Each structure stands twice: as C-alpha cells, then as structure tokens.
C-alpha cells in the first residue's frame, strides 16, 4: 500500500510540469479476420488529460480503445499490427504480461457490469488478485479510498455488503469506476461509459471523470459530441477506421481543419 502511494506521488511530481506522454501509438492496424477495422492510426495519449474518441458507429474508435489494454486478445479473429508504446514499452511485446498490463490500464465498459457480488467484493477483487493488500485493514482502506474517489462512498458506506447489481445504473457505473481505480492504474479507458445512464447520472460521472484527470490519463469513447466537448482536453475524430483529425478539443469543435470533421460535429452525418 505504502509503495503504491509513493509511486503515485512520484508520478504526480513529474506531472506537475508539462503533461507527459503515456501512450504513443503509431500505425496501428486491427484486422478481424479479413476485414481491416483500423487502418493505421497514430495518436498520443497524455497524462492528466482526457482524450475523447468520437466518430460514427463502426468507425473503429472502440476497437482502437481495446488495443490499449489488449482486450482485443479475447477476440479470436482479431490481429493487431503497428506499435503501441506505454511509457516507451511496446505492450504487444512477448515479454509484456497482459495481466499486469490490464492492472496498469484499467477499463470501464459501456454497460455497467458489476460482479454479482457485494459492493465491497467488487472493489476488493482487483487488489486481491494482484496482491496489493494482504491484510484486511489494507484492503478496507483501498476499498474506502476507491469508493471515495469514485464519489460513491457517501451513498454506500453503510451497505457495503449489499449486491453491486442492486444499485441504480449510475451508481453501478461509478462502482465499476471504483473497481477500476482500486488497482491503482495509470490509464483508465472508458468505452461510452454514460450511454446507458440518464442525464443526472451522466453529469455525475462526467464530473467524476474531470476529477480523476488529476491522477490518471483517461481515454473516453463517446457518441455524444457535447460530452466530448465538456470533459475532454484532446479529441480525435475517427471515420472509417482512420483518424480524420485530432488535436485540442476547443480547436476541433470551434475550428476543425477537415470538412468531414465539421460535417460530423454539426450533425450533417453520423
């Protein structure tokens, strides 16, 4: 626990200056069997920033996101080429352990998917399997800080033993975020985290994403232009498996360079 916290503090110290680069991806191609889903995407993900991936359905933004923690490995037909460097190390290198990688790069899914277990067990599962806490007291502390960071502690502190699936949709999604941050990741990937939530729960999660930016690099896939504009600092516009344009969010939304970006943002297609 102590070592984890100090390493977290070190990361912050570096981050105080210019945001450091977390992910460097160059020429990423993904094939599902014969079909090429991503055609050579190059993008940098910076620390302490929210990077939003936008684009019409089937444009490859989720596929790209799932390359970053190698979730595509679970799809038999998927094949990834190109280089994806996390802190300078190629995550598709044979020496990289995928289990360790996923502890460093957490993920929140489209539909809230808490385990059908207690709230406590949901959050404690990750730290347990990674051996982050051996004592019950340490585990309790991790669960509490994670739930606090996810802004859920005040709502559930008195009923940690109830089923995670018994919470409301918005609470479930924040529980999933707490579960992801419990293993102290460096990057959090979010695949349309608010698409199954109502506007109030969405606002709550967006607020949370903004708070989490202080400690993590966040990549979020979203269908909502407004959401991308609200929460992100960088935006990348995907279309037909390619990045059409990427850059600062204000610039993309106020003064896009490409015709297609302008059309998509103004709602002419998508």
């Amino acid at each position: 626990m102590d070592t984890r916290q100090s390493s977290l503090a070190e990361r912050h110290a570096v981050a105080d200056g210019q945001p450091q680069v977390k992910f460097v991806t160059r020429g990423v191609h993904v094939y599902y069997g014969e079909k090429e889903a991503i055609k050579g995407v190059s993008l940098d993900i910076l620390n302490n920033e929210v990077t939003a991936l936008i684009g019409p359905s089937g444009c490859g933004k989720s596929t790209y996101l799932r390359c970053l923690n190698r979730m595509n490995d679970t799809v038999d037909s998927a094949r990834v080429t190109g280089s994806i460097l996390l802190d300078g190390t190629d995550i598709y290198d044979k020496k990289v352990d995928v289990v360790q990688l996923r502890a460093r790069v957490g993920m929140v899914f489209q539909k809230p998917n808490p385990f059908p277990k207690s709230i406590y067990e949901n959050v404690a599962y990750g730290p347990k399997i990674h051996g982050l806490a051996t004592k019950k007291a340490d585990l309790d502390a991790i669960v509490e800080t994670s739930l606090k960071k996810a802004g859920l502690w005040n709502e559930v502190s008195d009923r940690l033993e109830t089923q995670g699936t018994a919470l409301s949709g918005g609470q479930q999604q924040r529980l999933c975020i707490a579960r992801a941050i419990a293993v102290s990741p460096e990057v959090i990937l979010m695949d349309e985290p608010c698409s199954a939530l109502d506007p109030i729960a969405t606002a709550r999660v967006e607020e949370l994403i903004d708070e989490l930016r202080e400690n993590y690099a966040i990549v979020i896939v979203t269908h909502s232009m407004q959401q991308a504009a609200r929460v992100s600092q960088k935006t990348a516009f995907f279309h037909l498996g390619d990045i059409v344009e990427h850059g600062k969010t204000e610039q993309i939304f106020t003064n896009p360079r490409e015709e297609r970006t302008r059309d998509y943002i103004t709602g002419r297609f998508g």
Partner: protein
Amino acid sequence: MTDTSRTTSYLQSEEAARRVKKRYAAEKRFRFYGLAMISIGLIFLAILFYTIISAGLLGFQSSQIKVQVPLTAENLGIEPGASREDIEAISGFKLTKLARASLHTYLGLADGDRDARARSDGLLSNGVDTQLRDLILDDPAIIGSTVDVWLMAHGNVDPFLKRQISRDLPEERRLLNDQQLGWLDRLAADDRAALKFNTNLFKMGASADPELAGVAVGLIGSFFMMVLVVVIALPIGVGAAIYLEEFAPKNKLTDLVEVNINNLAAVPSIVFGILGLAIFINLLEMPRSAPVVGGLVLSLMTLPTVIIATRSALRAVPPSIKQAALGVGASKMQAIFHHVLPLAMPGILTGLIIGLAHALGETAPLIMIGMVAAVFDIPGGPLDPATALPVQIYMWAGLPERGFVALTSAAIMILLAFLLTMNATAVILRKRFERRW
C-alpha cells in the same frame, strides 16, 4: 399509408373487426390446445402413480404369523450365557424345526399326523431360522424363556391374507388347500396372522422367496454408483466443458471432438455396457458385478450430458462479467473460476440432475457387466458384488410368484423416492448458487 384518415376508417371497418376477432380466436384456441396437452399428460401421470402405488403398497406389507416358541437352552442346544459365536453356530434346521413344532402345538396336530404337519409347515417361511437367530442375537437374555413372536409367513400365504387370490378357486388350483386356509382363518381370528410392515424389503437382498426378498443390495449398489458418477463425471465433465468452451483453439480437431461429444449423448446405453465389459472387466480385470465398474460405465454415459449442459450454461453467462474481470487484470482462468463458473453453476447442476436421473434408471449397461446376478449379501464397499435398483426391478418383474408383483411396484416406488431425494438435494444446491446479474 400516409393517408391517416383512410387508415383510421379501415381500422373502424367491419372487416378489421373480423380480423381482430379471428386473431383473438386463434389465441384462445392455442391456449385450449396447451391446456388439453397438459391435462392429458397429468391424467397419464395420475394413472401411472395410481397403478404403481396401489400395487406397490401391498409390497410394503408382509404376512406374518405369531407363534409361541420355547427358546429353552435344551431346545437350542446351547448353554445360557453362550457367546455370539455359539448363537451364530446354532443350526438353521434346529431353529426351523422349533418354530414349526410350536405351530404344530398351537394347531394341536398329533405327532403321527405327518401329512397335516407338512401342510402346517407350509404356512411358515423358509427364513424363520434367520429371524429367530437374529432375535436371540439381539437379546441373548431371552434364552430359556418362551417368546411370543411374529414370524414370516410363507409366500403362498401372502396372497390370501392380502385377498389377491380368491378363495372360490377350486382347491386343486389353489396354493393353499382348504385345511391350510382353515388354519389361517383360525390364526387370524386369534390375532395370530396379520399383515405387518415388511422390514425385509429394506434389509434383504435377492431371494427366491418373495417374503425374504429385498432391495437393500440394489439400493446400496445404486448409491455407490451415483456417488461414483458425481465424483467422476462432474469434475471431468465440467473441466472438459470449460476447456472446450474457453481455451480450446477453434480448429477442425476441436470441431471433431465437439461433434463426437454430441453424438455420444445419443449412443444407446448398452453400447457403454459393452465398452465397460471390454475395457474395465476384460482388459483391466476389475471385479464383475461390482458397483465400481457400474459407476465407471454410468459416468462415461453421463459425461456427454454434463459436458453439453455445462457448455450451454457457460455460454449463458453474460460476456460482460468475464470482460469486467479481465478488465481489472484477472487472468483468463481467474475470470472463469471466480466469476463465470459460479454463475453457470445452476445450469451445470441442472445438467447433472438430468444425467444422474438417467444413470439411476439405467439397466441395460449394468446387465452387460454382470450386475444382474442374484446377490444375497449386503455389499460392504463398491468392490463387493451388488446389483442396482432398476436391475432388481427388472429381475423381479420376470419372476412368476405372486408376491414379486407387489415387490416390483414397491421397488419402483423406492426408486422414485431415491430419485426425488437426489433431485431435491440438487435443487437445494442450485438455489444456493442462484444469483441474478
């Protein structure tokens, strides 16, 4: 379609009303058909239960005759306070003679009337010696006293006390003649011949006499086999299913294995019996008629069912649960064993229940490995010769004595009770695993 007023006027027309009426009528008809099907099923079930229970209840009773037996030390030929071995060594002939002599005394038959004596002997079971010996073994203090004890009546007496055979039959076609029936009436009037609970049914094995036959050997044999099936088929089946579903590479070989597993589930059970005979008995030289071989054969037979049920249960778990586990850095195996498998457990147990119920009722493969033998001794372990409940039923169904008809139905009732107990256990287990997601 764009003209809303035309659509509205059509929906209010008579033709539209007729269509709606027709749709409702079709639904009503379908409901009626469904109800009719279920009713027919229930009626047949009720008839089945009525036939089995009405015939089987008699099997739970046996005719007994109360006799005063003087168990004097002199009659038994042992000292008072004799050891267990001494009591066990008393000859059965002596005990039988003692019981018969007591009945002669009661009926007042003269020493010289050999024919009448022989006929009176025919009222008592051939197993009275064992009954008397057990009585003395239970309480050796009764040596020296005269006991008034209920002894098993002969199998020929049973149908008359149970009124299964009419007394109006001509004497030469009856199992008991008029004199014997007269004695029986005398005994009954004196409260010395009656129907009692048939304890032999639960503590005896095979016998040629219906009053001495029981399901104990079959029950124990079936129990050993079911334990073996659970211990062997459940872990192997679940393990194979997890491997095939989650780990196996998708190639031609896996496809071939899959197709074969599905085919194995449909292979006639006797083929598994031949397999058991060839491999376990001939090749591995395992004992014949042993529940261990039966259990292995039934496990092989149950495996495809368990594998197929487990695979579909695993597939039914939402993939989001596995992804969530992988997302926090669980290994594939951790994701499956910590999250997917517990959620699949109810489905797996359902498959196991079906497999076990199938295995419990199986006769044909057990006949192939020699479990159809008449086994008299209660098996002490899975290596001792035994039979199985359904095999016992099969054997009794083929015997000509009247008493076995009732026993067959009684054994079917016991088999059903066994099955219900087993299923109830599995249902309770399943309820404990059931969680919503």
